[in-house]
């Protein structure tokens, strides 16, 4: 397995465990702690796929796969533009 993909798999595994623990906190812990835990879980679920695209873009650029690195950058730009429009609307 390509080392960068192995590291990405490990990172996603850590994010998965963290998201699960935070989700349990958000669902079952009462009060402010539970709410913060739930918000952190949602934030992690939103940021994980974006982080994955960013990671792939960097990995492809390092490997010299410029065309797909450019596609990754375009996708990130679309995501940023879409999010900005959503908050502005």
């Amino acid at each position, binding site marked *: 397995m390509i080392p960068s*993909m192995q590291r990405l*798999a490990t990172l996603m595994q850590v994010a*998965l465990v963290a998201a699960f623990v935070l*989700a349990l906190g958000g669902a079952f812990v009462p009060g402010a702690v539970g709410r913060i835990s739930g918000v952190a879980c949602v934030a992690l679920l939103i940021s994980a796929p974006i982080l994955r695209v960013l990671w792939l873009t960097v990995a492809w650029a390092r490997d010299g796969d410029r065309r797909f690195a450019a596609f990754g950058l375009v996708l990130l730009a679309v*995501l940023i533009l*879409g999010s900005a429009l959503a908050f502005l609307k």
Partner: protein
Amino acid sequence: MNPVALAIAAFITAAVGALGGLGGAILLVPILVLSGVSARDAAPLGLISVAAGSLAAAPHQLRSRVVNHRLGVSTEIISSIAALIGALASGVIGQSALAVMLGVVALIAAFFGARRKGIRNLPDPSLTIADVAEHSGSLSGVYQLDETEFVAYRARRVPFGLLGMASAGLIAGLSGVSGGFIKTPTTSEIMQVPVKVAAATTTFTVGITSAMALLVYEAQGRIVISDAALVAAAALVGGTVGARLQALLPPPLVRRALSVVLVIIGVLLILRNR
């Protein structure tokens, strides 16, 4: 909805979503609405389930090298742009007409998936476990069919595939579902990518779509944190189970299961919005 029932529904729909590369929202949202949750509250929970299912499937799918990230990123660009246009234009098409349209699309996808027999991409005896990967610089790769067999594939009819992805994105933007139920059949049946690779790649891309949509819902203050956390916990477990099942089951069985689920979705959508 009672929390135990919500957790069970999220677990099952995330597992099926990861197994078939559908994203759980297309299943979870109708279930929630049928049980009395408003469509406005159900949509964010559906997307939480999709995002959680996508994250849950990621480690296993990355280690088994079944996702074609280059294909996913390339197609997600057009899909995300279309989703953005769809979201901005939502309201132009009536929700009932849209839901019936989604139902018809699901039934057509089920028909084409179920009608094909056998495996399109045959194993190549010269390939080994070391060859399993997506290929740099192209939309091709090799995936592991079973213990000893490996299959080379290449995405075909890419312009038609992109048209399908744009439709999936547009429908996702208009309706608030992730569009995975169109993306997986498009990738598998039009682009002729093996169904397991198609499903795993879609599971990756629906995570991206749902992340963007969840940001929109957060901006609108529509996410109820306690319910979202419960759905996330159940869907993280369900997504992990679905990804492991997908690796174990033979492709024709995955395709048939996908067709059955699509028929259920199609009928539900049409009946609810006649």
